[in-house]
C-alpha cells in the first residue's frame, strides 16, 4: 500500500540480472511466512507492535495533552504551578510492577520460540552451508555442491554452517532464521518450509567489499521435486567436457564473484586472455600463467598474488577434485 505510493525517485545504478525476489507478503511489516516456526515469531512481533502502538499513543498523547492544557501564557505572566505532590509511592510501584509482568511474559514467549529455533528435529535432512568472501556454497547429502539452496517442503532441514575466512551470517527472512557463519567452528539452524517457491538468502554479517552481493536463493520443492533436482544436477556433471565443466564451476563455485571473463579486472584479475600471459606478483617476482600456476592459485591462493590485487581469495583445497581443477584450467584456456 504505502510502498506503492512512494515510488522510487531515481533508478540508475547497476543491477545484476538474477536477483532473488521476495514473494508478495500479506502483511505490511513482515515478509510472507514460509516455515513452521515463523508463526510463533510473528505472533510475538505483532503483539509487541500493538503494545508499542498503544503505549506510544498513551505516553505521547499525555505529553501533547499536557503541553496544550498546561501551556504557559508568557514568561511575563509569572504563573506558578499549583502545589501538587511530587511523589507517589503507589504510582511508582504500579508503573514498575505492571510493565514487569508484561516483560516477564515476553521473555518467556521469546525464550520458548528461541529454544524451538535452536533445536532441530532428529530426522532433519542435513545440508552444509559454507560461507566465503562472497559466496554461499551448499553441500547436499550426496556430495553435490551448488550455489543455491534447494529443499523439500514439509521436511525439517538442518543447515550446518561454517566459514572459510571471516564472519558471515546465513539469513533467510521468509523463514525468520539467521545464524552466524564462524570460521573454525560449526553453527547450525533449522527450518521446515511450508510453502513451495523461491525465497532470498542473504549474508547478514558484514564481510567486506561484496557483502551486499553475497546473495543466494532457496527453492522449496513440492514432494519428489527435491530428489529430482539433485539427480538432475549430479547427472549434469558426469561426462561433461572439461571446458564446459570449468564454465559451470566458474558460476557455481564463486569464481565469478571476483573474476570476469570479459577482460575487466574486478576483485581479482580477469580470466580473459590470462593463460600464457606473464604476470608480475606482489612479492616482486614474475612468471607465466600456465597449468601449474593456475593449479597453485586454486589450492594456495595467497602464494603468488598478482600485483595490484588484495590477497582475499579463499583456498579450494579439498573442495575441488582434480578433474574439476582441470576443467577450470581448460575453461581459462578457452577464454582468449
Amino acid at each position, binding site marked *: 500500500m504505502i510502498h506503492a505510493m512512494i515510488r522510487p525517485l531515481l533508478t540508475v545504478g547497476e543491477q545484476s540480472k538474477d536477483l532473488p525476489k*521476495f514473494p508478495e507478503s500479506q502483511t505490511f511489516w513482515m515478509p510472507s511466512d514460509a516455515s513452521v516456526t515463523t508463526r510463533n515469531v510473528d505472533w510475538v512481533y505483532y503483539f509487541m507492535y500493538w503494545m508499542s502502538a498503544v503505549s506510544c499513543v498513551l505516553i505521547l498523547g499525555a505529553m501533547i495533552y499536557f503541553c496544550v492544557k498546561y501551556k504557559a501564557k508568557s514568561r511575563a505572566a509569572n504563573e506558578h*504551578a499549583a502545589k501538587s505532590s511530587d511523589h507517589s509511592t503507589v504510582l511508582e510501584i504500579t508503573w514498575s510492577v505492571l510493565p514487569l509482568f508484561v516483560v516477564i511474559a515476553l521473555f518467556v514467549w521469546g525464550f520458548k520460540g528461541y529454544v524451538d529455533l535452536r533445536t532441530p528435529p532428529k530426522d532433519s535432512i542435513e545440508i552444509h552451508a559454507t560461507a566465503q568472501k562472497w559466496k554461499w556454497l551448499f553441500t547436499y547429502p550426496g556430495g553435490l555442491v551448488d550455489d543455491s539452496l534447494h529443499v523439500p517442503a514439509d521436511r525439517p532441514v538442518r543447515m550446518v554452517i561454517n566459514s572459510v575466512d571471516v564472519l558471515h551470517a546465513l539469513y533467510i527472512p521468509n523463514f525468520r532464521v539467521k545464524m552466524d557463519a564462524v570460521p573454525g567452528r560449526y553453527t547450525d539452524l533449522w527450518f521446515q518450509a511450508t510453502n513451495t517457491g523461491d525465497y532470498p538468502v542473504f549474508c547478514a554479517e558484514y564481510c567486506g567489499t561484496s557483502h551486499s552481493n553475497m546473495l543466494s536463493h532457496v527453492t522449496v520443492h513440492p514432494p519428489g521435486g527435491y530428489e529430482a533436482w539433485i539427480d538432475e544436477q549430479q547427472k549434469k556433471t558426469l561426462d561433461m567436457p572439461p571446458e564446459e565443466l570449468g564454465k559451470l564451476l566458474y558460476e557455481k563455485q564463486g569464481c565469478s564473484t571476483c573474476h570476469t571473463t570479459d577482460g575487466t579486472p574486478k576483485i581479482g584479475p580477469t580470466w580473459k586472455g590470462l593463460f600464457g600471459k606473464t604476470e608480475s606478483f606482489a612479492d616482486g617476482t614474475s612468471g607465466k600463467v600456465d597449468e601449474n600456476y593456475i593449479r597453485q592459485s586454486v589450492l594456495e591462493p595467497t602464494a603468488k598474488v598478482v600485483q595490484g590485487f588484495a590477497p582475499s581469495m579463499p583456498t579450494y583445497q579439498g573442495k575441488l577434485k582434480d578433474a574439476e581443477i582441470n576443467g577450470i584450467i581448460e575453461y581459462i584456456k578457452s577464454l582468449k
Partner: protein
Amino acid sequence: MASPSTTADAAIPRETSADESYLTHDKGILSWIFTLDHKRIGVMYLCSVLSAFALGGLFALLVRTELLTPGRTIMDADTYNQMFTLHGAIMVFLVIIPGIPAALGNIIMPLQLGAKDVAFPRMNLASYYLWVIGACFMLSSLVINAVDTGWTFYAPYSTTTQTAVVPAAFGAFILGFSSIFTGLNFIVTIHKMRPPGMSWFRMPLFVWALYATALIQVLATPVIGITLLMMIVERTLHIGIFDPALGGDPVLFQHFFWFYSHPAVYIMIVPAFGVVSEIIPVFSRKRMFGYKFIAVSSLAIAFLGFLVWGHHMFTSGQSVLAGTIFSAITFLIAIPTAIKVFNWISTMYKGVIHLETPMLYALAFLWVFTIGGLTGIFLAVMSVDVHLHDTYFVVAHFHYVMMGGAITALMGGIHYWWSKAFGRMYEEKYGRIAAALVFIGLNVTFFPQFILGTRGMPRRYYNYLPEFQSLHQLSTIGAYILGLGFLMTAAYLYASLKNGKKAPANPWGGSTLEWQTTSPPPYYNFHNAPPVTQGPYDGYEDLEFDEKMGGYVAKATKATP
C-alpha cells in the same frame, strides 16, 4: 531562595566590573591551550565534539546519498564501507561518548555543585588532549587508507583487511583513557566537592546522571582498551587471539567488545537522561516528580548495563543458556527506563509549560526515546531478535536512541545552557524552526528503517533489492532535512556569539546553583559560595520574571527598592 545579592555584596568590588568572566579573564591563545578552568576545557571540548559531529554527519549524508539507488550511485563499494565505518566510529567514540559528559558536564557540573572547579583540573586538561590525540589517530586512518571494518572492529575481518585498522583502533584506545580521566575526575568531584547542605538527594539529576555515567566509564572502558590492544597485537605480530587461522576465537572478540560497548551505550544515554531531567521541571515550573526514583534508576541502569552484553550475540552461536540469561536481564533494564519516562511525563502534569527551544528538544527526546525504548523490547525477545538482528531494524532502533536520544538531549542541553556558557541569547524563533526540522528529519530518516528491517533488509549493504528502494529514498530525504536543521542551528548559534542579546543570569528560571551566578560566570564561578537549603527543583515560586532583563530574579530583591 537565597540570592547572591543580599548581604555581603557591597564588599566585593569585582561585582562592579560586569564584563569580567572566565571568557575575558585571561587573553591570548596560550591562555586557552594551557587553561585549567573547567569551563574553558568544556568549551574546547564542545567545539571539538561539534566539529567531529559535522564530519560524522557529512559521512552519514554521503552514505544516505549512496543508498538512493541500489548499486553505484556516487561511490564504489569499498568507499561506502569506509564511509559507514568512519561515520559510526566518529559518532560513537568522538561525539556521543564525550558529548554530554565532557562538554556540557565540564562546563555545568562544577557550577551545579557551587564549586570552583573539578577535583583534578590538570587531569581534566589531560583528558581533553588525549581526546585530541585519539582523534588525530582515528582521522589519520582516513588519510592513510580508511578503516572499513564497521565501528565494531569484528575479528577476523579486522585482523585481515588491508585498510588502516591499527591507527583507528589505537585512536579508540587513547580516547578510552580520555573517557576514564573524565569519569574519575567527576566521581571524586561529586563525592568531595558538594557544598554544605547539598546531600546526595539534593543533587541535581544531571549530576546524578553524570555520576552513574562516570562509574561506567571507569569500570568498563579498560576492557575495550585491552581488547583493541589485543586486536592490534594480532594484526601486527600475528599472535593468535581472535583469528581461527592463527588459533584464536572470533566469538571471544565479540564478548570482549560488547562487555564494554553495551555499558558504553549507557555512557551515551544516561547523561541525556540527566539533561532532560533538568529541562523538564524548569520549563514546567514544577518540582520533579519522583526525583529519587529518577536518581536511583540511573544507578540501576548503570549496574544492569554490565550484565547484558550477550544480547548482541543471540545469533553468534552462543549457547541457549547464555542467551536466556542475557535476555532476562535485558528485560529488567526496561523497568528503570520506563520509570524515568513516566516520571518526566508526570512532572508536566498540572505544570505551567513553556515551549522554548530547550523544552522542544526535551519533548522531541521523550518522543523518540519512547519509540527507541519500545523497539528495544522487540530485540530483547530472543526469537524475534533472530529475525531482526543485523537488519535495518537494529539500525533504526539504535539511531532512535543514540541520534534521537543522546544527540537530541545534547542539542537541548546546548540551548538550555548556551546563555550560561557564552552570555548570549540565540534567536529563539530560529531555534524553534531548527528543532522542528531536526525532529521531523530524524523521524523521516529512521522510521522507514524499521519497516526495511522487519521486511528483511540486512544492514551495512551497499547494494540492495529493488523493492527496498522507495523506503531507502524516503530515509535519505529525512537525512537531508536533518542536515538542514543542524546547519541552521550552527548558523544561528554562531551568529548569537557575534550579535546575540546579552543573557541574564537566569533566563529560564532554574533554581539549581549554576543559575545563581552571572552569565557567563566569573573565573572563580561564584563570588560567594551559595548555600544550599532546598532540593534542586524547589523554590520556583520564589523567582519572578523581570521583563526588562529578560530573566528571573529572586522575589526578595525585586521588593527592596
